[in-house]
């Protein structure tokens, strides 16, 4: 099959996560709080899908995120593909049947997304202490929220695999 059906499920859950995250951010705006929860979007596609399906899923996710956020178009499309490829190359080292490794990867990729955003969008304000203060607050609450959201999100993705009667095991595993 050209495209693993799980790629569609993973893309749909990524779109759902982004939508919910932006809704929450909109409600948190009066408190000057902002959540960046992009890390979990890359983890299961990189760990579960074959190379072709992973590429299509992450490409669509990147374009979706780029269109939704006011960032430069292409920042997340290219950034997600680079991060996702790195996880794919090392996926033999991670266990997918439990949430421990995916959560760890979600935190690492989320930090990478924050760094990417700061380099891509915030280089002009790099000398402003207020900018760094807000980055630290954003990173702290985002990663605190990830502790709850990442396990829920991965369980939701696995549950959808079962409900849609698709393969629940990683494809072509292990990749040497």
């Amino acid at each position, binding site marked *: 099959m050209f495209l693993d059906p799980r790629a569609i499920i993973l893309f749909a859950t990524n779109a759902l996560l982004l939508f919910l995250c932006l809704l929450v951010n909109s409600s948190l705006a009066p408190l000057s709080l902002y959540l960046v929860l992009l890390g979990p979007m890359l983890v299961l596609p990189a760990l579960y899908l074959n190379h072709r399906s992973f590429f299509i899923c992450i490409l669509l996710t990147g374009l979706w995120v780029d269109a939704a956020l006011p960032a430069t178009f292409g920042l997340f499309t290219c950034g997600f593909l680079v991060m996702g*490829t790195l996880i794919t190359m090392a996926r033999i080292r991670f266990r997918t049947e439990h949430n421990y490794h995916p959560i760890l990867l979600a935190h690492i990729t989320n930090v990478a997304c924050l760094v990417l955003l700061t380099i891509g969008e915030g280089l002009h*304000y790099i000398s402003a202490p207020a900018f760094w*203060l807000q980055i630290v607050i954003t990173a702290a609450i985002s990663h605190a929220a990830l502790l709850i959201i990442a396990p829920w999100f991965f369980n939701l993705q696995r549950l959808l695999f079962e409900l849609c009667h698709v393969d629940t095991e990683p494809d072509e595993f292990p990749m040497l």
Partner: protein
Amino acid sequence: MAKFRLDKFKPIVALGVFLVGWWIVPTLSKSFLPFVQLSFTEFQAPAWIVSSYLDDLESFWARRSHSKIELIEAGQELARQKAFYQLLDQRNKSLETEVMRLESILDMPSRREFRYQVARVIRRDLSAWWQQLVIRKGEDYGITEGAAVIFAGGVVGRVVEVNAFTSRVELISSPNFRMAASFEGDVRPVVYQGVPQSGFGGPIGEVRDAPQDLVANTQNPLRLVSTRLGGTFPPGLMIGSVSWLEPGSTGIFQAGSVRLDKRLLSLQEVSVLIPLNPLNYDRDVP
């Protein structure tokens, strides 16, 4: 000796090809990537519009739970306010007639006229990297890029992106936002610019190029208002208040922090000012 497997490099090769393609495509076709971006944006817009209408519906049902007595009291209050605003409207009309008469005597150039388009805020993206709002009106209501956006408390920002049914507004607190301004009662222009927000306290901006003779203090803060310079905003709209001015980097002018309206962070509805006679920079600018 173990067989050397090339297939493990497939992801890297595919990534390399994609990145080269992403770099080359804009040089071959300038409209391809903007088309992709627009397509994805328009595809997502209905979800936001539906969520905004659901929000309205929730507010409607919340209001339905109010008692009749509460509604009667609210109606009475509205009637009082309406009578007051009708009086103000009469006075405004007589003052406008007087201004027009004086302008024609002095042979002054005509002012820019705007049409007001009230729009609901459907999303707020206020972070360290950007300060933007998404509103529920776009090309379908004739919103134009660069149009001024205001609310009851003064200036909100400027439209930076117009889609079919939504528009994106750059907030006045964004470091990418800059406009000409003046202090109330002083015609000399100054420069207002947004600054990175710390996340603590209300939104702030900065004012530059303020004349040396202006003095601001916490007891009598200076009110910063819009001017007609630039042509985007009508004059006299509140931007914020300045309670401290100090010599700027040049030493010739003063600079200070502008305290903006706190309501900017929780706006529900804004007005977009669409110019009736848009500026033609080739024709109108000398």
